[in-house]
Every structure is written in C-alpha cells, then in structure tokens.
C-alpha cells in the first residue's frame, strides 16, 4: 500500500517537475476557456434578444444552454489531452531502462500500475477541480442549478479516470510513447463514437454498441443525474484496462 503511495507521489510530482503538466493544464484551460466564453456570450446574446421581443426569461436557462453543452465540450478536451498525460507512464520507463530499477525492486505489477494510474488520475483531479471555475463564474453572474454542476465534475472525473486507465494500458503495451499516445487517442475516439454504429445495426448489437459509448454514460452526469448504471460502467472501464496492464507486466516480468 505504501509502495503505491510512493510511486503515486513520485509520478505525480514528476508531472509538475517537467513542463508536461503545465502544458497540458494550459491547453485544457485555454480551449475550455475559449469554449466557455463563446457559450456564455451566446447565452447573453439570446437573453438580450428575448428581452427585446418581450418573451418571458423563463424560456431559457443557463444550465441547459451553457453548462450542459459545455460539460460535453470539456470531455472532448479531456479526450485530447489524456493521451499526453498517460503516454509516458510505463513506456518511458521501458524505453529509458528505468523499468529495470523499478521492476527489480520488491513491488508487484499492481503496485506499479495503481501508483501510476493514481498519479494520472491526480492530474485529472486537478483538471476537474480547475474546470469547476467555469460553473463558479456562472454562479457569480447568473442563477445556475448547483446540482448538475457537481455531478458534471464527478462525471468528468470518472470519465477521465476511465480514459486514463485505457491510456495506461497502451503505455504498458508499447515501448514508444508516440505509439502509446496515438493508440490511446484512437481507442478513446472509438469509444466516443461507437454508438454511431448503432444507427445502422439492429437489436441486441445496437443496444450493446449504445451501451459501450462512453458519451451516453457521461451525458447523464452532465444532466444532473447520478445513476449506478453509469458508475458501474465507468468503474468497469477503469478496472479492466488496469487489470490487463498488470497482467501484461506480470507476464513480461515473471511474477
């Protein structure tokens, strides 16, 4: 347990000792901030128009028009930055040779995988916390419903963790960071759009594809709904790649 903590601390600090974390967070905030500004200005414009034509202002609300679509945008940005967060986790150690130090110390594959996973999840936690600034701005200037604000952050965190888990598997499977990043991005994108195929398929297959789409699970968090179904799915999506990564390390390095 303490070894997981040790690896977590080392990896998490490692993000902030190299420029990587700052670049990732800056990119996240820059794109997120831009989206947010565009949406909030649009909302303001619609508000003006409603007032001009004398419609009741209860016709619109900031949750539906800004926060909910913005949550979807945030998750898309996550999809783009997570390969950058996870690519180095294992691949770098294998490439540089430090894996030999790490894996000849008395640590089990689960220690290594969980420690590194938690470090990347820590990054997601930082991003999720920072992303909370946007609803807070809304809270200052408008009257949003706080419930969905909180569930969105929870959803973003779970979704990010699931993405990290997939990215970690790619990093554990490949020695090349770029390959790991591209594979992660491709796989996550596939998970993103897999339900599109449910349009052309029928019956059970269609339902399964729909179920596999991470978007449909995350969407409900953004709405303001907590459903154990989505939590079970996302936790499974977190666990299975972690399990595979640990098995991969174990198989390769003979536990």
């Amino acid at each position: 347990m303490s070894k997981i903590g040790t690896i977590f601390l080392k990896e998490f600090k490692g993000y902030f000792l190299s420029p990587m974390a700052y670049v990732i967070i800056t990119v996240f905030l820059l794109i997120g901030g831009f989206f947010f500004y565009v949406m909030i200005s649009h909302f303001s414009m619609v508000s003006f128009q409603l007032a001009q034509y004398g419609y009741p202002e209860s016709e619109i609300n900031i949750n539906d028009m800004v926060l909910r679509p913005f949550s979807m945008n945030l998750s898309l940005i996550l999809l783009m930055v997570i390969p950058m967060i996870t690519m180095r986790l294992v691949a770098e150690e294998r490439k540089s040779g430090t894996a030999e130090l790490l894996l000849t110390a008395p640590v089990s594959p689960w220690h290594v995988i969980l420690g590194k996973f938690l470090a990347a999840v820590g990054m997601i936690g930082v991003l999720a916390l920072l992303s909370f600034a946007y609803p807070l701005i809304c809270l200052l200037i408008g009257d949003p419903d706080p419930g969905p604000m909180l569930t969105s952050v929870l959803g973003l965190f779970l979704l990010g963790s699931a993405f990290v888990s997939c990215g970690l598997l790619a990093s554990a499977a490949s020695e090349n960071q770029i390959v790991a990043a591209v594979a992660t991005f491709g796989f996550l994108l596939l998970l993103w759009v897999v339900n599109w195929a449910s349009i052309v398929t029928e019956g059970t297959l269609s339902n399964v594809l729909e179920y596999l789409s991470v978007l449909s699970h995350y969407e409900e968090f953004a709405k303001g709904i907590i459903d154990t179904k989505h939590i079970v799915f996302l936790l499974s999506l977190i666990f299975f790649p972690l399990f595979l990564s640990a098995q991969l390390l174990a198989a390769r390095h003979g536990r």
Partner: protein
Amino acid sequence: MRKIARYVSVIGVVALAVGLLLSMIPSVSSSVPDLLVILGVVFLVAWPLSSLLTLKRSQARVFFGSATLGMGMLLVLVILVLLNVLGARYTLRWDVTRSGRFSLSQQTKRVLASLPEKVQVLAFFPEGEGQDARDLLTEYAASSRRFFFQFTDPDRHPEKALEYKIRDYGAMVFTMGTRHERVTSATENDFTSALARLMSEETTWVRFLTGHGERRVEEEDKEGLSQLAALLQDEGYRTEETLLLRDGLPSVSDVLLIAGATTPLLPTEMDSLLAFVRRGGNLFVCLEPHPGPGLEGLLRPWGVEPRSDVILDASGIGSLFGMSEVVPLVAHYEENHAITQHFSAATFFPLCRSLSLADSLPQGIEATCIATTSEASWGETGSLDAPEISFEPGMDTEGPLCVLAAISWDRSDLGDTSSAIPGRMVVAGDIDFASNGFLRISANGDLFMNCLSWLAQREELIGIRPKEVRGGAMMLSAQAARSIFYLVVLVMPGAVLLPGLIVWLRRR
C-alpha cells in the same frame, strides 16, 4: 470441495441462462428471473473463487501466469460483463437537479410499472435535435425494463417515416404489440397518456357524423374519406359512421367528426351535439365552403366564428406544389400548442373558410388558432367566377388567416362539477384537406392525425404538470463579457503557464 464447487458453477450457468431467458418473456413477473440471475452469478463465480482461495502460491502463478493468462483475462471479462448486465438492470438513480426536472411523477411510475409488454418508441427527429424528448424518454426507459426508445432521422430513414406515415419532425410513435399511439409533444403528460391509451382495452372510436351530406368513409373518389378511414385504422382508432337520431350520442371518450355537413342539422341534433360537447365529448368540426349548413350556432359559444369567405393565396408558393390560388398554403403553426409544437411542414387547405376567434371568451375556455395561411392570402367574399379576383379592402379579410383552431375548456369553470375532464374541440375551415385528393399531399395527414390524438387524450392523466425549470436570462454588459474573456482565456491559462515556465527555466 473443488468438485462440488465445479458442479455448483454448472448450476450457476443454467440458472443464469434460464433467468435471462425468462426475463425476455414479458408475462413472467420480473422477480423470478432476477432471482435466478443473481443466484446464477453467485454460483458461477463459486468455482473460480473457491479454486483461487485454495490455490497455493506457486499454483497461483500458474493460474494467472502466462500459460493461462488468456483464461484469467477471459474470466475477468466475463465477470465484468455480468456485472454490467446486472448493473444495467438493477439501478439506483438520483436526480440532483433543483426542481427534480428529470424525475417522473408517481402516476407515470404507476403506469410504467403496469406495462404488460414491451413498448417501443420511435422518435422522428433530425440528427442532434429533440433533446427534451430524449431526456424524457431516457427517464421512462430508466424506470421500466419494458420501455425502449430509438431516435430516427426521417431524412436519413425515409423508409421508417413512410412505414409510420410520418411526414414531419417531432413525431414519436409509441408501439405496443400491434397498437400504435402517436405523440407530438415531449411532455410527461403526453407520453404517459399515450402509454395509458396503449394499455387500455377500449379503443377510441372516431365517429363520422352522417345524414347531412357529409363526406363518406366508403367513398373512394377524390372527395371521399376512404383513405382517412384507413389511416385512422392504422393508427389504432376504430371508425364508424353514426346517425345521431338513430344511434344517439357517442361516449365522451370518443371523437365525433363532422366531416363537412352540407345540409343544416335538425334543432334536436344541434341540441344534443351541444350537450355532447358540454359533457366533455371531443368534437372535430371540418367545414364546407360557404354557404354552410349553419354550424355557427355550435361554434359560437366557444369563440370560433367561420367567415363567409374562401381563402385565396397569391403568394404563388402553392404553385410549386401544383396548387392553384384556391388552395392556400399553410406553413405557420402555433409553437405553444401541443398539436403543432414541433410541426413545421407545409399543409394545403383547398377551398377553405377562414376562422375568426373571439377576442374575449368566457372564463375557462381557451381557443387557439394553431395554423395560419401566409400574408399573401386573403379571404375572398366575392364570387370566384368573376373574371378579375383581387383583394378588396373593406370586403375581404386580410391575411394571414386562421384555418385551424383548437379549443379546450375547463368544465368546472362552466359550472359542471361532475368531472374534472376538460373538453376539447378542433375546428378546421375545410374538409377537403383530409379528403382522398389531399390527405397524402405534404403533411396534411400528419396534421389531421395530430389534431385527432390531441382530441382523443385520456383525460384522467391530466394531473401531470410539467416541471418548473427555473429559468433566467443573463445579460452581460460589454465590460463583464470582456472581463470574463480575459479571465478564462488569458488569466486562468496564464496562471498555470507562468509557474510552468519558471519551473522549466529553473530546472534547465
């Protein structure tokens, strides 16, 4: 011990399979298969679990080592899939929104719990639209294992639209067994009503009034209504012609259709019709061109007055569809009425009279014009045989003109306390739009069916009020907008980038 566990796991597989199979049969109550599924999973994992517990350390490596790596992964995958199957079936759901806007009412939950078989909803929306409908349908599906829905873009799947005779966006077809219900507005009230109608043993009758030169359902020529009758039957209605003097008044749950009477109704008939309407009967009045049979007496108490004119449309748009000036194009619909909420397709009303709605109505009556012609139309009062027809101010009515009006009233306000069921009436200035010659043109059929669904509501469910969503406009001053821009696009990213740069420089 391990041997026993192995047999137990076989029992587990069987229990799981039987449980899942049983759960697909709708008539079996859901607790039996659920129990079997849970037992199945517990038994199924008994074997690998017991093997794991009794493994020695060196064997553990063999079990999870490279030799059986694939097996181990498969086992975990199977367990995860089972967990997800169970997780999707047994859910806890919390709606944390301020107004509980995604929570269904108790009535809806009762109706959903009593669904006897699978209900499939097909929602026709363009890609990416219909968010409200999707949210609401998701809640229904989450509350019932027998409720399924699917979104279809009618432009991408014209065959589906054809199959359900949908010509416009926003229609949702609820199907249970062979019965269909069409809903056009995404409110809990409408959805739950549709479910209740699907489940009810009685079918709604659409009774065609006869005896006054009305259009006939068996007539197959251009003016007849045979196609309308067929469409109604497809939608699950039953049709019958009725003679008031012979058959008496229909039941209030039915819809009485006056499909263009040409001779006046007898005073006794008039009285009993009024009584029917007052009692909460649903009436659909389609007028013939002036001079009509004098149904004004029937309509006037509800604030609707048909004008003695014929609507002409000089916009020329109708000619694009091969229509002449006497067939005005209707493309403006009332967005705030359930019938036309999502309706936008063009409809055509040949030889139509315009309707005028009274400015003030008795308490409790609400009359809404739900479809109007274009501004290039007018109500011609002169003879159509004149060589030169044009808009004459003072004599003709200026467009846009109302062709379709929906009236509803709260009966308690009318002094009738026998029931809370509100009455409903739809008045169309024309019958030809639903005749064989025009029913299939553009969205005429859809509009007619929407009117009929609204009329045929099951009224005991009216208690479901739409959720209050606290809205609120938010107007940013230019200054505030600029501040937000600087904050989110410059300050926040900069506040991270700067320490990043410092760290990078210091560690170089």
